[in-house]
């Protein structure tokens, strides 16, 4: 995209929505997604937001909303978590064989208001809204934001207990197992919004390694009526997929608009 067009579109986004869809790509990057062996298995995962995938050169993601689901459905605590200048990093021990779901699940409210004639912004949890917005605030506009950034890791044989949809916000219910992806093979996923198929939603797909090529090489696919989208990976590598939806289905009465976004990192292996 020509630089001038790009700037124009970013500006348009900025003015159209008080909190424009995060301009940077937020992602998790696991050290592996397919592991074999019995003992002492683990993965290390990076969490960062950046323009170019998967280079951690902009800002880290906070880990307070990290949720790791083990193959038996139980939650796993991350280990050795740290947040540096450009990325957060944590380890996930894989004590049992099966598929693990690793996600940052962020439910926030975004508010815009005027105080003493000045435009102010606030971001926080629903329970703090009443307390933290000053009583004298006017023109209050509240938006509900739901974000999920995730990846999947399998030790041994893949299974799907951890793939069970959470039922809120945007997420995928895999048709093809996310750790079973091979170049040239078509994979299918179902996009869900609050547990129901999300139809007609655009999903952006980008392969990592942008720094070393001249074209972004991104693709957009649209989900069908059943929420399903398909893609045949042209090459092996780490891929990032993102989708977002805006509607008025809020669960907090002060919010007029709900924005749900989803990003997932999937590893595609060579044949």
């Amino acid at each position: 995209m020509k630089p001038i067009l790009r700037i124009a579109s970013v500006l348009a986004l900025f003015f159209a929505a008080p909190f424009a869809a995060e301009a940077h790509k937020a992602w998790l990057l696991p050290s592996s997604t397919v592991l074999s062996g019995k003992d002492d298995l683990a993965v290390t995962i990076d969490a960062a937001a950046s323009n170019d995938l998967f280079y951690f050169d902009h800002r880290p993601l906070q880990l307070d909303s990290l949720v790791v689901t083990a193959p038996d459905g139980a939650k796993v605590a991350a280990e050795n978590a740290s947040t540096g200048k450009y990325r957060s990093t944590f380890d996930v021990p894989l004590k049992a064989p099966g598929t693990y779901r690793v996600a940052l699940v962020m439910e926030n409210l975004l508010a815009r208001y005027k105080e003493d004639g000045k435009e102010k912004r606030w971001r926080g949890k629903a329970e703090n809204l009443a307390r933290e917005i000053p009583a004298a605030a006017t023109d209050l506009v509240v938006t509900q934001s739901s974000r999920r950034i995730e990846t999947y890791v399998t030790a041994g044989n893949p299974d799907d207990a951890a793939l069970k949809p959470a039922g809120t916000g945007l997420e995928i219910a895999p048709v093809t197992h996310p750790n079973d992806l091979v170049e040239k093979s078509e994979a299918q996923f179902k996009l869900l919004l609050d547990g129901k198929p999300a139809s007609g939603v655009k999903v952006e797909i980008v392969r990592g390694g942008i720094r070393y090529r001249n074209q972004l090489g991104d693709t957009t696919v649209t989900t069908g009526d059943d929420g399903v989208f398909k893609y045949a990976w042209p090459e092996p590598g780490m891929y990032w997929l993102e989708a977002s939806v805006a509607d008025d289905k809020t669960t907090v009465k002060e919010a007029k608009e709900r924005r749900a976004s989803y990003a997932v990192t999937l590893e595609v292996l060579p044949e």
Partner: protein
Amino acid sequence: MRILLSFGLTGLVAAPALAGDMEISIEIPKLDVAEYHKPYLAVWLEGPDQKVAANLVVWYDVANPKQEGDKWLKDLRQWWRRAGRSLKVPADGLTSATRAPGGHAVSIAADSAPLKDLAPGTYDLVVEAAREVGGREVLRIPIAWPLAEGTALNAKGEHELGAVAVKVKP
């Protein structure tokens, strides 16, 4: 005339007992590299739907001092995805130690576990080798089961595998 006749007759009799023992010979190439590790290797029979019909050979670091040899089985990517990840290793009669460069012959009896119940048909004999700090190579040899008398099929790898042959033991 007599030979033709007997061939015709054997063609009519569908009996697995006619299948001879399968002999697979695999050449592991000698490579001139600074850090050499004996490759992990798997051999299996695959049906047209890419389903594994028989696991035949798995060579990996069984005797790894920290019992960590199975950590790299996933590097046999195709085998891992199609069969390895649902197998329990080590497995008697299937897994054994890695082999050094040179020729190796593996004999699998027609009445042994992986072959005795194998349905007649066409399969791919697949050989996959992966070497630590090295590459990975997959060779496929289409075979017809049961193996006809005098079967001798060959393939040759370029990097991690040398000559691979499948024969019927008379």
